[in-house]
């Protein structure tokens, strides 16, 4: 790192000037959007909180996706992805910021969640039955515990990985794997609970056991989209050009494809089973989304989420084309946002979506704050895990 003179591709260290430019842009966006959010809060508080929840869920579940897949790589001893792992880890390490990003949710809990209203709870037998769980204090406590647990694990694993940069020993790999195994549970089980708390309880009488997997699948797909875009962005700037090759992009394409399919599978399972059984307290959730302006989004979902990205990525040539996977990555991120919007907003706007400048402002705020954390890591650490013993293998990896 101290080799200031040697700005050579193989040091895998980001140039200071470039890093500062990136940081300045992100800091500017963060500052501007936070100011806009504050303004929005004073102008239209309920609207701000709903928009904020969408943005908060968007970035948080991307972090959980990163958390999950970084641990999977340690556990499976995956070699192909080593050159990209630090980028993934830097996304994972945005999780602790969630403790701060969670504050607006806590402040807006009464505006967002109907179960905070005692009259609503008193009127419903099923809400009375679960009032111990859906209570404000417990909700907040749970949120804090979720983030605390995730952060503990994320930081522990991140430390091992960066320690390996200098130690260059196999020991860190072992320690990271040991953390990763129980960590997977934390990602999936606690991730599901978080999705139940933050998103499912928006309609407190509604329940679906697969909801956690649907949310996590969406977050994972967005995570791979972000990784793809970051790598391609770096490539454009001439960073890590030799480390992340066509073969890596091909595999990223495969992951986008696989997660598109997996998302469709779980989302379709949820829809089809609820549609088929036709039990009133379950169909209610979809019913709201089949009315007014929401119907258009509901009917577009199979195309946005599945048919278009799936058939575009089906062909091997498409998965190997950087332009196409970049387009699909952007597409998946936009659709993930629309999807979360479609999950959250019908409780606020019954008749149909109404876009508001606060949607953009809140999204810019959470993304740029996480982005700052992500970016700050590139100054402190190498851009690839240079101490990983499989780095060579990853550099020369080829799709058979």
């Amino acid at each position, binding site marked *: 790192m101290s080799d200031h003179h040697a700005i050579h591709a193989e040091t895998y260290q980001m140039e200071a000037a470039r890093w500062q430019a990136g940081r300045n842009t992100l800091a500017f966006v963060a500052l501007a959007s936070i100011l806009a959010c504050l303004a929005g809060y004073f102008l239209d508080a309920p609207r701000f909180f709903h928009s904020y929840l969408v943005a908060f869920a968007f970035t948080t579940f991307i972090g959980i996706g990163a958390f999950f897949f970084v641990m999977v790589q340690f556990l499976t001893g995956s070699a192909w992805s080593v050159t990209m792992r630090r980028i993934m880890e830097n996304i994972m390490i945005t999780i602790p910021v969630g403790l701060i990003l969670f504050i607006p949710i806590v402040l807006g809990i009464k505006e967002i969640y109907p179960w905070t209203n005692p009259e609503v709870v008193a009127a419903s037998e099923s809400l009375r039955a679960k009032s111990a769980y859906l209570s404000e204090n417990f909700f907040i406590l749970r949120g804090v515990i979720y983030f605390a647990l995730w952060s503990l694990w994320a930081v522990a694993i991140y430390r091992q990985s960066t320690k390996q940069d200098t130690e260059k020993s196999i020991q860190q790999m072992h320690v990271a794997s040991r953390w990763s195994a129980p960590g997977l549970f934390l990602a999936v089980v606690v991730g599901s609970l978080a999705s139940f708390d933050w998103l499912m309880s928006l309609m407190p009488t509604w329940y679906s056991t697969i909801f956690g997997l649907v949310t996590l699948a969406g977050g994972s797909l967005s995570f791979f989209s972000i990784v793809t875009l970051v790598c391609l962005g770096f490539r454009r700037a001439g960073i890590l050009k030799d480390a992340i090759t066509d073969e890596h992009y091909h595999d990223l394409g495969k992951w986008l494809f696989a997660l598109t399919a997996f998302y469709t599978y779980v989302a379709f399972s949820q*829809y*089809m089973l609820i*549609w*088929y059984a*036709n039990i009133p307290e379950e169909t209610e959730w979809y019913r709201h989304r089949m009315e007014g302006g929401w119907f258009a989004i509901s009917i577009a979902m199979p195309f946005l989420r599945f048919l278009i990205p799936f058939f575009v990525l089906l062909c091997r040539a498409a998965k190997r084309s950087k332009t196409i996977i970049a387009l699909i990555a952007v597409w998946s991120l936009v659709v993930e946002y629309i999807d979360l919007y479609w999950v959250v907003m019908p409780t606020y706007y019954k008749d149909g979506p109404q876009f508001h400048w606060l949607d953009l402002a809140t999204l810019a705020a959470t993304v740029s704050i996480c982005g700052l954390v992500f970016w700050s890591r590139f100054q402190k650490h190498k851009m690839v895990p240079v101490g990983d013993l499989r780095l060579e293998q990853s550099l020369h990896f080829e799709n*058979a």
Partner: protein
Amino acid sequence: MTPAQMDKLGIGDDKVYGVIGEFSDPHDLVAAGRKIRGMGYTKLDAMTPFPVHGIDDAIGVPASKLGWIVVCFTILGILTAQGLIYWVGAVNYPLVIGGKPLYDVSYSIPVTFELAVLFSAFAAFLGMWAINGLPRLYHPSMVYKNSHRASDDRFLLVIEADDPMFEPAKSADHMRTVGAAEVEVVEG
């Protein structure tokens, strides 16, 4: 007159299949294949006990067209299933059961998926044998004394007789120069 020329003129009883060179290491085979192709031969083949990495590029095996056949059959499977479900449920035998619509996309998906997979699998399986021209009971390469080891531990490189550059003696020499342990002009 060489057998190949005789063959082209349609005279002579013996039809030459080609020159077979034998290797015991897949890497040597690939290297030899590349050299032989570099000499200008175009009709090359290899016989190996397992798919050898890199041989396709070395001797110029064209890419498989199977994918396109399969895609066509996948679409056919989807159309068949949708047609069947619609026609049976809503046209030929309309009967309201469980208050469900006579046709709906939701419940048609499982069967549609299965038929798409079934059609694709048959296309991938039968299509592969059809393109490969198999099954067949006899092939001239079987005459080669060590052809039975091509499924065990020998890697055979073939210059086929219909290659424009093919001349039995000369091609056999070429095969020796690239390092084949055994070389034989095979007539079948």
